[in-house]
């Protein structure tokens, strides 16, 4: 057998993996409640595909081939335990196998939404939801996830195993939540996706390629949610928000990796197609009822983009949106963003007052708090206090480029 045919087989398997991995995992796990077993069965099926397809060629429907092999493996695995364990999931798989043989033309059902809701289930630790979603829905390798989340691969592996054991052991249901819980549960799914994006972003500062990958995964996941739940404005809001941030990716750092804040970015480097898509998504979301934090965050980004048209920021609008956001979701990030906007739009004193009014314990060790405080203090001429705040912000920064930037601002404050 020729080398090129081997390559064809490998490519076909890779394409099938890319296109249908999440659907296959979702289909199998939602029937057995066992994510780890579904992943193992699929890994085995892909392995078998590489061998078998090399001999007998790539089948017409690689996806269906993989499903049958993985399902048979699960059923075989289930039979071994049937005597001792509850055989219900296995029986369900066998029944569905018979069903599907009758209707061979039909594609198998898309259960990915159920899988997304399981990964972001309230009974699953918040810290593991994003890694779990990346691994099970996207098939991202555990060691890559580990490096993005700054833990060792064995530690990440253990945490993922623990989460999957909880899903199986406690029998978390693979169901789309009912209407009255959908909004709250969807918010958790969206926050999980946004956390993947945030991880990619933060990581960008260190080693660019890895972080960049995760931001793309997050965008893909958001698009998937919109496909599966087209009538949810917050999902559109999230994708819009991430696209606005992504559109400025080329402008955030200079070629020598110097940090460039939003206010000093070269707007000609912003990606116009991404901004246009974000604007369309946001407009569509706002037309529907059900405003939420992601739509408001996206609206703030949209207001920042007005600089493209007018050359300057519209702080009045930005402050108004922050006020609504602060009522709806008063997180540390939102309250600090609001204070910064007030400092720019209404004056340093208003900004400082807003900062002082933030009543959150965690704020004392939160870098953005000190960075914003330092800026506002410097602007109001309180140089000694500004200097101390800059020092605190620098101490709390993990990113060298940010440290260098803050150091520069600190010197500027003294120079003026």
């Amino acid at each position, binding site marked *: 057998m020729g080398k090129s045919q081997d390559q064809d087989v490998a490519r076909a398997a890779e394409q099938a993996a890319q296109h249908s991995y999440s659907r296959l995992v979702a289909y199998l796990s939602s029937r057995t409640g066992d994510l780890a077993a579904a992943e193992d069965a699929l890994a085995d099926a892909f392995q078998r595909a590489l061998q078998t397809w090399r001999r007998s060629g790539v089948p017409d429907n690689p996806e269906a081939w993989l499903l049958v092999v993985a399902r048979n493996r699960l059923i075989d695995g289930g039979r071994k335990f049937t005597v*001792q*364990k*509850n055989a219900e999931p296995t029986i369900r798989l066998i029944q569905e196998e018979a069903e599907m043989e009758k209707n061979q033309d039909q594609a198998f059902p898309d259960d990915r939404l159920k899988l997304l809701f399981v990964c972001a289930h309230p*009974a699953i630790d918040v810290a593991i939801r994003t890694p779990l979603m990346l691994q099970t829905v996207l098939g991202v390798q555990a060691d890559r996830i580990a490096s993005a989340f700054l833990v060792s691969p064995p530690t990440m592996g253990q945490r993922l195993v623990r989460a999957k054991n909880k899903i199986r*052991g*406690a*029998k*978390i*249901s693979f*169901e789309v939540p009912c209407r009255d819980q959908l909004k709250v549960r969807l918010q958790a799914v969206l926050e999980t996706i946004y956390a993947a994006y945030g991880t990619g972003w933060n990581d960008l500062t260190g080693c660019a390629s890895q972080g960049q990958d995760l931001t793309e995964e997050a965008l893909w996941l958001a698009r998937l949610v919109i496909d599966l739940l087209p009538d949810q404005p917050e999902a559109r809001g999230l994708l819009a928000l991430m696209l606005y941030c992504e559109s400025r990716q080329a402008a955030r750092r200079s070629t020598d990796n110097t940090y460039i804040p939003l206010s000093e970015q070269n707007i000609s480097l912003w990606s116009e197609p991404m901004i246009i898509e974000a604007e369309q998504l946001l407009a569509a979301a706002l037309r529907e009822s059900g405003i939420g934090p992601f739509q408001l965050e996206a609206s703030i980004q949209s207001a920042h983009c007005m600089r493209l048209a007018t050359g300057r920021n519209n702080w009045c609008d930005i402050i108004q949106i922050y006020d609504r956001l602060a009522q709806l979701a008063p997180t540390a990030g939102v309250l600090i963003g609001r204070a910064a906007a007030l400092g720019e739009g209404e004056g340093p004193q208003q900004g400082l007052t807003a900062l002082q009014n933030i009543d959150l314990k965690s704020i004392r060790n939160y870098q953005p708090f000190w960075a914003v405080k330092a800026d506002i203090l410097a602007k109001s001429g309180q140089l000694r206090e500004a200097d101390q705040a800059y020092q605190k912000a620098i101490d709390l920064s993990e990113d060298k480029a940010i440290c260098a930037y803050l150091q520069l601002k600190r010197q500027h404050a003294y120079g003026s």
Partner: protein
Amino acid sequence: MNYMMMIFESDDAMESRNGGPNTEAYWASWGAYHSALTEAGVITGGNALQGKQTATTLRITDGKRQVQDGPYADSKEQLGGYMVFDCPDLDTALDWAAKCPAAEYGAVEVRPVHKSE
């Protein structure tokens, strides 16, 4: 699948079982909850427990009994009772736990019961 509800209550709540201004409301809420559970055929067993001051904790160290006055874990809220539910999945068990009176003033830990294989 069977799930155990471990019901954690504050000392005040435990006190109000045995007389006081809140006693009637306390037992009324539990009575209503229990009726709803029975009617739905969810509950398969359970009991309220006496207060933590009646608890004794024992462990064997080097073959010797170590007996201690008090509960295993002395926390602000104490294990006030337990129930076992038969539910199809965790989500259903959590829905029932959310209706438990103690969910409002204490906490409910939900755990699947180990199946012997």
